[in-house]
């Protein structure tokens, strides 16, 4: 797998992920080629207890596929299993 060049992105954490990461968001430079890989890196870093199959992901307020690549300047939101209503 080729490493993509590093891009500057913005991540927002909610609910359990916010508590596990200890922050509501962070800016970071990543070389992860896909959203899946970005999540796996952060999962390892913060000890998120949820496999990415149980989450959805959105970039710039649109739901995305885990295999989508990461545009520069992306605002990424990981969406743990929801429980509204």
């Amino acid at each position, binding site marked *: 797998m080729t490493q993509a060049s590093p891009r500057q992105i913005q991540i927002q954490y*909610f609910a359990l992920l*916010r508590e596990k990461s200890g922050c509501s968001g962070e800016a970071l430079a990543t070389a992860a080629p896909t959203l899946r890989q970005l999540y796996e890196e952060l999962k390892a870093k913060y000890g998120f207890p949820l496999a990415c199959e149980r989450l959805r992901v959105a970039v710039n307020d649109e739901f995305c596929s885990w295999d989508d690549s990461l545009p520069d300047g992306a605002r990424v939101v990981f969406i743990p299993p*929801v*429980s*509204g209503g």
Partner: protein
Amino acid sequence: MFTLAREPINVSTLSRALHGDQAGAMISFEGWVRNVNDGRAVRLLEYEACESLAVKEGARIIQEAQERFSVIEASCVHRIGLLAIGECAVWVGVTAEHRDAAFAACRYIVDQLKVRLPIWKKEHYADGSVEWVNCQSDEIAEMKCL
């Protein structure tokens, strides 16, 4: 219209806003905070939303209901923040000329919002513990499925 509310939901005001001379039926759903969930005594609830995405997705659900069913108006408000037992966490109201469409659209909106809105519920239990609902670790979630 879909909105998120930090303050208690005023059902009368919302419902009045749906009135119109052509409407013959209004169906509304209110989701209330229960004092027990899954056998555990609940003290209060906390809702957190990814607001930009929730508002967008909520509006999309309302629009889908309007396209699928012959409704006149459809509206939904979801609370965020801390809620006490008995408070209204979510309200859905739908008007239509006839009740069939109003029932179906209200049901559709409620079902969809529960699985699609990026909103998370943290239960504060009477014993002092807390839990983000549905967010148990993969291992615990698997055990519960066995």
